[in-house]
């Protein structure tokens, strides 16, 4: 396909005009014309999010309501448990959880957030996977649930240590929320779904709002000098520092949750011996790997030198080895660390922190050290801020 043709086909989020007005550099991403950076650039946007607050348009992501035909949200939760290895039934009203759609081989079809909104579940899925996810949900759950893509909604992420104060000016009730809480609340007179979560490792919020009201909300938030518009470039460098997976790079249909070091997302109730053990696609493989381990594992890597080691770089046990033992799946520059960082899959025997490996970059073997993640400590708000009185 020629560039011109692919541009014609690109979709726009409800905030597209705002991005252009703010001087964003637009790039194609998952079929959308998206801002990769604004005028200040990736480095400043990244650092500003860590020190104050970044505002990200993530409206390209899929928001899908899963409504139980019975009217009881527990029925939707149980139905969804056939597709994900999470405790959805135990997810309280107003709570959110990270989970994975698995395939019959135990691989990952997508990673997602699921929220219990009392009378239905709300799923947030990756842009590149949303059509496939919707089809998967419809095919498997239509008898029990109505699968409703929320196409007329925008989603914006406000992330960073000053996100709370910026949002509290518009929605004071959100101060009571803690990490992974979800609330329906009115912001500037608009009904919003706010979750206290994100993709940066910082405290922050994702705000679902009507497409027609999104720009006014963003304009208002951007009037706060603490809040700066931030693009996909900073979003990627922030998530990598936080050790978070990017679907299509660090996760795909051939990686299992145990390979990916995401077993923390599979609770005891879904594991062998649990009350609702298994029952999701690929359970046989995944439960076996939970008990006995997987052959390979996702790890963090820190190159010893300054050269970034990018996605696709092959890894070796020794400098002179000919057989690659693994491959980098995400790699770049940790802006807050002022050093290169990466993620890769390596044999489990070589996955312990401080293991020294070699990465091939432009024909050279560069030393690289297995490192625990996150690379930058996360600053999630696990307990609510108390009111002054």
């Amino acid at each position: 396909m020629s560039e011109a043709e692919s541009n014609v086909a690109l979709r726009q989020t409800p905030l597209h005009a705002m991005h252009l007005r703010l001087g964003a550099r637009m790039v194609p991403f998952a079929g959308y014309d998206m801002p990769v950076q604004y005028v200040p650039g990736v480095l400043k946007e990244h650092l500003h999010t860590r020190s104050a607050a970044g505002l990200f348009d993530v409206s390209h992501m899929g928001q899908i309501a899963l409504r139980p035909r019975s009217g009881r949200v527990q029925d939707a939760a149980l139905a969804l448990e056939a597709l994900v290895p999470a405790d959805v039934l135990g997810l309280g009203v107003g709570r959110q959880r990270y989970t994975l759609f698995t395939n019959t081989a135990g691989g990952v079809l997508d990673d997602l957030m699921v929220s219990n909104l009392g009378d239905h579940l709300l799923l947030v899925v990756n842009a590149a996977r949303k059509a496939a996810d919707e089809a998967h949900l419809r095919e498997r759950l239509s008898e029990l649930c109505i699968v409703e893509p929320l196409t007329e909604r925008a989603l914006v992420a406000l992330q960073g240590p000053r996100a709370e104060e910026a949002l509290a000016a518009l929605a004071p009730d959100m101060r009571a929320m803690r990490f992974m809480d979800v609330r329906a609340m009115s912001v500037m007179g608009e009904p919003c779904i706010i979750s206290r979560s994100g993709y940066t490792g910082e405290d922050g919020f994702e705000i679902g709002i009507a497409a027609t009201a999104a720009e006014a909300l963003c304009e208002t938030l951007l009037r706060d000098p603490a809040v700066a518009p931030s693009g996909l470039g900073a979003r990627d460098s922030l998530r990598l520092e936080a050790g978070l997976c990017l679907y299509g790079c660090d996760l795909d249909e051939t990686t299992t949750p145990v390979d990916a070091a995401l077993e923390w997302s599979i609770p005891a109730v879904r594991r062998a011996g649990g009350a609702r053990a298994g029952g999701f696609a690929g359970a046989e493989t995944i439960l076996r790997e939970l008990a006995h381990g997987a052959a390979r594992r996702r790890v963090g890597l820190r190159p010893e030198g300054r050269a970034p080691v990018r996605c696709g770089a092959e890894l070796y046990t020794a400098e002179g080895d000919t057989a690659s033992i693994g491959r980098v799946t995400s790699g770049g520059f940790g802006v807050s660390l002022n050093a290169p960082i990466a993620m890769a899959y390596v044999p489990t025997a070589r996955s312990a922190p401080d293991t020294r490996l070699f990465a091939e970059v432009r024909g050279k073997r560069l030393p690289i050290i297995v490192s625990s993640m996150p690379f930058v400590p996360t600053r999630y708000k696990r307990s609510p801020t108390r009111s002054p009185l």
Partner: protein
Amino acid sequence: MLKYTKDHEWLRMDGNMATVGITPYAQEKLGDLVYVELPSVGAMFVAGAAAATVESVKAASEVYAPVSGEIAAVNDKVVAEPGLVNAEPTGNGWLFKMKINNPAELTTLLDELAYKALTE
């Protein structure tokens, strides 16, 4: 007078010595640079061969030798401070100097007008 390549390098001649860098257009397209890898002094390159690498947060890009020759000097300042290439791409953000061995190759380069036309 700068000469340009279609791959967005610039070149400034002083006798038989060429100073090479990336154009303001290139640095703008690449965004904030975080890593620069330069060739060794004494290394020989033919025109069009990858001689240096500049990397932004997200991606690595090769810098090609605009003409054939031997590396005579490299700019260690941009290795220590890659952002200098963004700030002063045709000044203190130069990458390397090469002693050229075939002046006839200079005629294959673009002048400012031709390069401008390419990037508009």
